[in-house]
């Protein structure tokens, strides 16, 4: 299929979803009321609660939800063929993705801007809040491991990337100093630093820095450590800010390349039902998380956007609009992986050699070539923006993880309240996972924890709608599908890794490159424990959610007679 047709399909689905389905839910079920005072208006404090223009908010929402997730997932999923990946992205966003983001925001808005921690405690049960926090913690650790692995593999394979990353670290930190300390003009600073970063990427093609994967794992963790412990304005945020322009330029270039070159998908529409990491159902549905539905979005929508919307009717534009935009980004990632390689063999070889980052770099450089950008610079540029996207997410995630460690274990072990110890503990677990784990399974587990957060958000929305005597079916069925799929994916992954341990010990399966049999067995064992923990937590949540739903729908039956915990 022609890549322009894929892009058009995504745009048409987004338009129908936004103007028909989302409009129907917004007007008929939720009945967004322009006269109702939102938390942003009622509790305006200039910090957390602040009425903000919907146009500013959609830009901010999109930036907060669209990082590497909607790009990496589809690139991996091409192994099943581009058609299942595309269908899941289109139908996933149409029926589930925007529903999740939009409803999370309206749930928080109609409950005084409360966070999901408080809402899960009140709507489901006290342990639902603890379960949500544990999902978040595993989500953070697994995303660190998955992205750390991607970054290190990429930097070890493409030696023009490391210098570009070092240059970007320098320009980002310099931008922070100029903006916040020197108070330089922001336009001037931005222009100068973006230009310097581009020069740094060019110099990377000349000054190549070779290194092993272990070296670059340690480098990525050190980079993230600095981001986690230094003031956010001095390091993490300006690097994020400058790198964003490069990413924006790259994606714009890729989109233009598609329109000019309109390459045709060279990989098959469908390959086989079961690939290395597992069968199409349920594994594809957790492999592509952010591009279709992601639990992370519920946290952004509830604790951020819901507290800044100045009018209830703006919610559809901001949250559903940003999700449909992300769907187009995910479709772009499908094109990069499926239409820029000679055939499926070339794609598979690149995946095996340098992972999704390598596929992205090679694919994007092919698209940039339609604009006349030389292949060497194109690959270094695309590789650098992929690594930068991953590494800036790692900085923020490690920052979260150290706070999460302090919150979850700080009472039992007071030393973990120390930010350095908290960050080092998260880094040690991450290193252990990367050194001993298998990338494909780590990504599946990461997707699983993410989708469980999404299922929990949809569960809260369903219970809230039921308690309000509104039509809850538009949230209930996506929630049932997501729970069933994710629980199945986790169970399948745990079983597969258990099988792998047996095969490794019997010598029937060679350990991954750079690992001994003992390390691979340990890595599989750790991953099984994580999968089982998530599985049990999800089942407990299903039980608690069912009871809370029963109280809301059938208040006079035995299910509805139980004691209700109030926050």
């Amino acid at each position, binding site marked *: 299929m022609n890549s322009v047709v894929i892009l058009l399909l995504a745009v048409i689905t987004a338009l129908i979803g936004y103007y028909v389905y989302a409009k129907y839910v917004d007007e008929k079920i939720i009945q967004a009321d322009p006269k109702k005072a939102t938390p942003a208006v009622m*509790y*305006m*404090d*200039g*910090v*957390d*609660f*602040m009425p*903000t*223009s919907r*146009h*500013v*908010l*959609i*830009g*901010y*929402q*999109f*930036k*907060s939800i669209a990082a590497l997730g909607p790009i990496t997932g589809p690139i991996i999923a091409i192994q099943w063929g581009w058609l299942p990946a595309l269908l899941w992205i289109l139908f996933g966003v149409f029926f589930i993705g925007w529903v999740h983001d939009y409803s999370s925001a309206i749930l928080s808005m109609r409950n005084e801007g409360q*966070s*999901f*921690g*408080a809402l899960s405690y009140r709507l489901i049960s006290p342990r639902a*809040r603890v379960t*949500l*926090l544990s999902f*978040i*913690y595993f989500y953070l650790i697994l995303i660190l491991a998955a992205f750390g692995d991607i970054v290190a593999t990429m930097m070890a394979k493409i030696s023009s990337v490391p210098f570009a990353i070092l240059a970007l670290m320098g320009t980002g930190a310099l931008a922070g100093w100029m*903006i*916040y300390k020197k108070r330089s003009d*922001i336009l001037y600073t931005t222009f100068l630093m973006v230009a310097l970063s581009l020069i740094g990427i060019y110099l990377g093609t000349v000054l190549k820095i070779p290194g092993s994967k272990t070296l670059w794992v340690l480098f990525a963790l050190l980079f993230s450590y600095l981001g986690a412990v230094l*003031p*956010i*304005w001095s390091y993490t*945020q300006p690097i*994020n*800010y400058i790198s*964003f*322009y490069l990413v924006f330029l790259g994606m714009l270039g890729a989109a233009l390349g598609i329109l000019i070159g309109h390459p045709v998908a060279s990989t098959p529409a469908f390959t086989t039902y079961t690939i290395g990491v597992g069968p199409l159902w349920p594994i594809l549905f957790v492999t592509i998380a952010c591009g279709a539905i992601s639990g992370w979005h519920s*946290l*952004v929508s*509830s*604790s*951020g956007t819901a*507290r800044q919307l100045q009018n209830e009717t703006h919610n559809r534009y901001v949250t559903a609009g940003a999700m449909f935009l992300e769907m187009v980004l995910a479709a772009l990632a499908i094109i990069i992986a499926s239409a820029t390689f000679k055939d499926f063999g070339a794609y598979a070889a690149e995946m095996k050699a340098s992972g999704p980052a390598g596929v992205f770099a090679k694919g994007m450089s092919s698209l940039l070539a339609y604009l006349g950008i030389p292949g060497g610079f194109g690959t270094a540029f695309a590789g650098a923006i992929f690594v930068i996207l991953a590494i800036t997410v790692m900085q*923020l995630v490690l*920052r*979260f993880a150290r*706070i*999460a460690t302090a*919150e979850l274990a700080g009472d039992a072990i007071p030393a973990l309240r120390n930010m350095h110890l908290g960050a080092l503990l998260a880094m040690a677990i991450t290193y252990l996972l990367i050194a001993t784990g298998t990338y494909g399974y780590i990504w599946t587990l990461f997707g699983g924890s993410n989708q469980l957060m999404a299922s929990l958000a949809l569960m809260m929305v369903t219970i809230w709608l039921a308690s309000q005597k509104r039509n809850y079916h538009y949230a209930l069925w996506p929630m049932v599908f997501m729970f069933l799929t994710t629980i199945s994916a986790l169970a399948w992954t745990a079983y597969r890794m258990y099988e792998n341990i047996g095969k490794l010990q019997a010598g029937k399966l060679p350990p991954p490159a750079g690992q001994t049999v003992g390390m691979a067995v340990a890595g599989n064992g750790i991953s099984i424990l994580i999968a089982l923990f998530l599985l049990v937590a999800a089942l407990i949540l299903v039980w608690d959610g069912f009871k809370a739903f029963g109280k809301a729908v059938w208040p006079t039956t035995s299910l509805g007679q139980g004691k209700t915990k109030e926050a």
Partner: protein
Amino acid sequence: MNSQFSRLLGPLGELTRGFLLGNLAEPVLQERARVQETLLALLYAELLGLPVPGRYYALGLLPFFCRELPGWKRRRLAEKDLTVVHDLM
């Protein structure tokens, strides 16, 4: 035609601002809130039984800061947990 163009340009400019500069404003807003809360604590320390330094000037300033009290109280009493990701970004 001109007004239609500017009607389109306005939202596009705002979208770009949110897209590109959204996060940069966060540390500034947080810092402003911290400074403001320190000032409020100084001005209203007497409510907590603490002596107010510069009572004469504080008295003059009180009416200007009255409207900040509910927001201050809400922020201080609000339960913060990991799900408030906005604070960490």
